[in-house]
């Protein structure tokens, strides 16, 4: 066991953790944040994508002990004050969700893209969600939702529907 201090969704924690536990299981089992999902557990599917020091990573391939001193944002940290983010609202509006299992990882990857690049081209979006597998809706609605969110987040009030 190791003692680690870290921040998740803005809240600071100090916890004891088994050294071989992945960040994914630690978030779900020890911090009770079950929004982050386990799909393949091998870095293929992206269902476990979280932000580690602002960058998307696969939580299934990170050891919990590695986040000592670092900052993690999970899907639970994207909505603010109980209000969905414009990106989350766009996913709803475009029916970019069916079973919902890929959605947390998808949102994290898209959220990170919009932070790096507020005006993504379609290819940029495709590349950003390359590591996130969706097995039900297909990707079109997801891509359209991200395009819409990018439009909503632009400073000018040019709303495209």
């Amino acid at each position: 066991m190791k003692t680690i201090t870290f921040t998740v969704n803005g809240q600071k924690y100090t916890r004891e953790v088994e050294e071989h536990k992945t960040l994914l299981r630690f978030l779900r089992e020890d911090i009770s944040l079950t929004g982050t999902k386990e799909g393949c557990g091998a870095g293929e599917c992206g269902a476990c994508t979280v932000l580690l020091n602002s960058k998307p990573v696969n939580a299934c391939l990170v050891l919990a002990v590695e986040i000592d001193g670092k900052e993690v944002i999970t899907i639970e940290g994207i909505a603010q004050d109980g209000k969905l983010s414009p990106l989350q609202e766009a996913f709803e509006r475009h029916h970019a969700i069916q079973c919902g299992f890929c959605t947390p990882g998808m949102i994290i990857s898209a959220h990170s893209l919009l932070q790096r690049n507020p005006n993504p081209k379609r290819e940029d979006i495709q590349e950003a969600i390359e590591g996130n597998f969706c097995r039900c809706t297909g990707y079109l609605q997801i891509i359209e939702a991200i395009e819409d969110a990018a439009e909503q987040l632009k400073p000018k009030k040019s709303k495209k529907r």
Partner: protein
Amino acid sequence: MQFGFTYHRPASVIELCELLNRYGAKCKILAGGTDLIVDIRAGLKKYDYIVDIKNIPELNELSFSKQKGLSIGAAVTCSQLIEDSTAQKKYHLLCECAETIASYPLRNRATIVGNIVNASPCADTAPGLLCLDAQVLIKSSSGEKTIALKDFFEGVKKVKLAPNEFVSKIIVPPASAEAKGAYMKLKRIKGHDLSLVSVAMAVIKKNIIRVAIASAAPTPVILPDFSKNTKVDEIINVALKTVKPIDDIRSSKDYRLHMIGVYIKRLYEQLIK
């Protein structure tokens, strides 16, 4: 996780060397973990000690100088390299290779040195690094040595590295800076995938053609240097005699051989003609 282990996070190379001397083959270095954690989880590998090197400042260094070339520390991630404007400008071929690795979240963790030390036959940075004549700096408590990357690979997932040694950095020499080059990778899907076969070609000092190929032999391979006047058919002939591809779940041997010819022809058209 299939097996438990003790986690160490040394803060210096000296501490790292002490751990390697103490634990030898019972320990494994962790950098990005994108191969290691998968293997441990699947029960394919078992180690008593995991040594995380990301907290060692000198292993996080990515730097360029006209005298020494590009130096890529063992903890430098693929994303760090790709986002470095000097690396992009001076060693574009290498960055192009790194951009094809997996997906963005994986590139944020996976390291360039890890891609080499893992020694997969399909390592994407290997063809680029081989074309650019990369050198591997190996350290241990008894000193350091530099060997050419082409001599570092021994076989599938095997490299010349003793249990008390570690790769401190990869050095891409100044002679390869600003080499014109390109990388072509065959995948089953447009999204992230391992290569079925891949080819890198570079023109060094405007008169040497170098070609390296991955996923076509137990290790990534580099062909002997060609002069600028070499005909493309001759390069393809040498390539097909050098590689030893296999039939496997991702591709047949014949398809691999065919695509090596296709890619060499395309790269030649793009870079030389």
